[in-house]
């Protein structure tokens, strides 16, 4: 062990490696409900070459290596299930390039969402990226590696669809560029017109390599932004409403929330949609188009626009929404966890009913948080429960509710998003055998020693 420690210290500097109980305790868990497991070391590299050296060391010594961004997935993806080295990437937080005219940025693998947002606001006010509602400390690389979603997901798909190139350190220790940057100095594409190799890394949770640079597409940032909420008490109509809203092609983002508190929200479904524009006329035109699209629901008295109080509007317009994090302390207990399957929008009614059913069965406070992906191509339905970290029974009930939901969502056609290890196993079992075999082959080729975030996406 001391030889490994010494080697790590030589790579990253002795101040940036630890095997102390304090770091081992903290880095053995995430804020969610998954059981803890201690790493042997925590290392904080500063460069791709340092990451490369760490991987070579891990390969030589056959010890596991677990890359970590902010550790905010909640599903235990950065918990070192088999010990080894946790590689905290946050010292690699430089914004390397912004190509304004080609609308992309290249950032280091530990760069946070907040850094990029702030940097663009100050230096490129006409550009933006698809920021998720995770806390701003969440890193861009970890978000795309879990196929995260963000503010532009209704328009452009998963945030991983907006990747336009990667630099990856492979389990062999080679540094590899993916996409146009493998040939060109420009990072405009993660694949096309070449074979798209980004799929070997996106969605793999660091089991096939460590992302040290991300090229990310940027999009026009309009001067103005507003939000409207269309409310209905009939969950069966929500898919139709989403269909009409997305048909207008006038919308930035569509979120749906349903929750029992405060009382004004109870039993209602709030389809919130965001409008952007460079002028009042542009915003008003878009607003009118959406209002017109929803007119039928108003006439049939199935829904109506909610008057949004200024404080609430301010909160809804935040990017990221701090209210998403505040949910953790609803029970004055610092915890929330959600199962967020990607599923057809048509499944909204049954998902929302299941959410209420589970909250009653397990006596939990709930929130349904939905983000529309693409033009209604799918949605992330977040079955979210808040829990008190000091209440073991409540934590246990939350786990049970989420486990039950895990099976439920597969049964109704959903696919897990950022699945826990248990969910990964269920998914692999249900997967087409040929797909499973292909995954196994990819993993065997890229990581024959099984050192990369072992325990995750283990296909046998």
């Amino acid at each position, binding site marked *: 062990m001391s030889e490994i420690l010494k080697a790590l210290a030589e790579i990253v500097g002795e101040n940036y490696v630890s095997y102390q109980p304090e770091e081992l305790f903290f880095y053995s868990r995430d804020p969610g409900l998954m059981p803890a497991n201690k790493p042997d070391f925590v290392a904080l590299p500063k460069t791709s070459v340092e990451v490369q050296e760490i991987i070579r060391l891990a390969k030589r010594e056959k010890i596991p290596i677990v890359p970590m961004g902010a*550790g905010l997935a909640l599903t235990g993806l950065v918990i070192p299930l088999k010990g080894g080295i946790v590689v*905290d990437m946050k010292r690699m937080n430089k914004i390397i390039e912004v190509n304004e005219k080609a609308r992309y940025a290249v950032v280091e693998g530990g760069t946070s969402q907040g850094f990029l947002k702030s940097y663009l606001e100050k230096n490129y006010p006409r550009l933006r990226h698809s920021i998720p509602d995770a806390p701003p400390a969440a890193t861009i690389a970890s978000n795309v590696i879990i196929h995260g979603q963000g503010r532009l997901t209704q328009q452009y798909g998963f945030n991983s669809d907006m990747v336009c190139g990667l630099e990856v350190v492979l389990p062999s220790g080679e540094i590899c560029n993916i996409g146009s940057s493998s040939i060109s100095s420009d990072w405009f594409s993660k694949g096309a017109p070449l074979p798209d190799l980004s799929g070997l890394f996106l969605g793999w949770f660091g089991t096939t390599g460590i992302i040290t640079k991300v090229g990310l597409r940027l999009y026009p940032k309009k001067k103005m932004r507003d939000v409207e909420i269309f409310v209905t008490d009939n969950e069966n109509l929500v898919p139709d409403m989403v269909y009409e809203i997305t048909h207008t092609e006038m919308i930035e983002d569509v979120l749906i929330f349903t929750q029992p508190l405060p009382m004004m929200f109870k039993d209602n479904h709030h389809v919130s949609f965001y409008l952007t524009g460079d002028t009042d006329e542009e915003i008003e035109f878009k607003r009118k188009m959406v209002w017109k699209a929803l007119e039928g629901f108003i006439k049939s008295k199935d829904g109506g626009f909610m008057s949004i109080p200024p404080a609430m509007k301010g909160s809804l317009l935040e990017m990221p929404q701090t209210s998403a994090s505040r949910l953790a302390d609803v029970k004055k207990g610092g915890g929330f966890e959600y199962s967020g399957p990607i599923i057809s929008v048509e499944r909204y009614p049954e998902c929302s009913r299941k959410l209420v059913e589970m909250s009653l069965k397990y006596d939990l406070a709930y929130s349904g948080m939905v983000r529309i992906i693409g033009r209604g191509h799918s949605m992330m339905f977040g079955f979210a429960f808040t829990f008190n970290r000091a209440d073991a029974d409540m934590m246990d009930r939350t786990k049970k509710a989420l486990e039950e939901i895990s099976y439920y969502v597969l049964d109704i056609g959903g696919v897990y998003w950022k699945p826990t290890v248990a969910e990964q196993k269920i998914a692999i079992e249900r997967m087409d055998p040929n797909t499973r075999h292909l995954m196994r082959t990819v993993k065997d080729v890229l990581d024959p020693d099984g050192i990369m975030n072992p325990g995750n996406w283990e296909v046998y």
Partner: protein
Amino acid sequence: MRYEEIVHRCFRCGYCKLAGDYSDFNCPAYRKFMFETYSPGGRMWLIRAWLNGDIKNSERFQEILYSCATCANCVEHCVFTFSEDLVNIFIAAREELVSTGIIPPPVRDYFKNISISGNPYKEPAEKRGQWAEGSLVEEYKDQEYLFYIGDVGSYDERGKKIAKAVGNLLIKAGLSIGILANKEMCDGNEVKVLGEAGLFEYLAEGNISLFKEKGIKKIITLDPHSFNAFKNDYPEFGGVFEVYHYTQIMAPLMESGKVPLKDLTLRVTYHDPCYLGRHNGEYDAPRRILQSIPGIDFIEMEQSRDNAFCCGGGGGNFFTDILGGGEESPNRIRVKQSLQTGASIIAVACPQCAKMLDDAVKVEELEDKVEVLDIAEIVGRAMA
């Protein structure tokens, strides 16, 4: 432990370690060490682990707790309802460590020196007022204001110069002030934040008793740390006084033109002291003074006001130096941030910040590019 009922409520979302605009890490301890354990959220989780017996009191744990600069960036940016108590929680955990008697040696020595000598410098009380020799400032008799200096202004060479500059300025502005000289006692702010609640109580009661005995009703402090203790902590012990930081008294006087000034062609930026800014909400008074000086080109640092990056001297680190050292030490980062403004002067309103930033300028070998001056020293130059 005090606040034990809150510790488990941290979600470790990380808002606490960022600036308000997310542009950078703004927690000085996290910025230096970069392990999550040194962030406010990490500290919360480790305190809980320690209380639950999952980790033990160790040198590392002590370093994690004592590297907190109590700068309150976390208080400002945490999104939860308990945010106001974050620094209090870290202080409470330090109190628990102190009660075990196992604390970092520099912290132990700090307490010892305060207990034995009444100051961290192990200097005799007779030397407390020596800085005032050759100044216009006299001992307190029945003046309107007590001018309270504090340990750094009384004993530190840089601090003494600032004390003299502020004292002379107050007198020239026509204020009736007096100092306690060798009767002045440590205000106890750092004793409290380092976790020695008993010693703090002793100091607070001693000071309150002395102030009352002297008939003191109004206090002007040199040091924002003293200002904080008198304003926020002394009332709990019956010490209710009219307390001002010197910039608060001077700002309206400067704006009224009572202090005649000549043009000073300088580009100046200002570093907000945490105990004046985030802890007490006073961001404007120092700026008003600077902007009242003709010729000054005042420019803000990107990280200013409630987003100011701490110099690293708070939370007792000025004396214990647990957070100092190395390229990533907060004072060196702060000086580099100030350089981005193109200013040739970093204005400060705290002798601890002055010393911290002065040291960083020297280590970075930037003496020919930038100078650290207290606001009173800048005004003094404009008056000369």
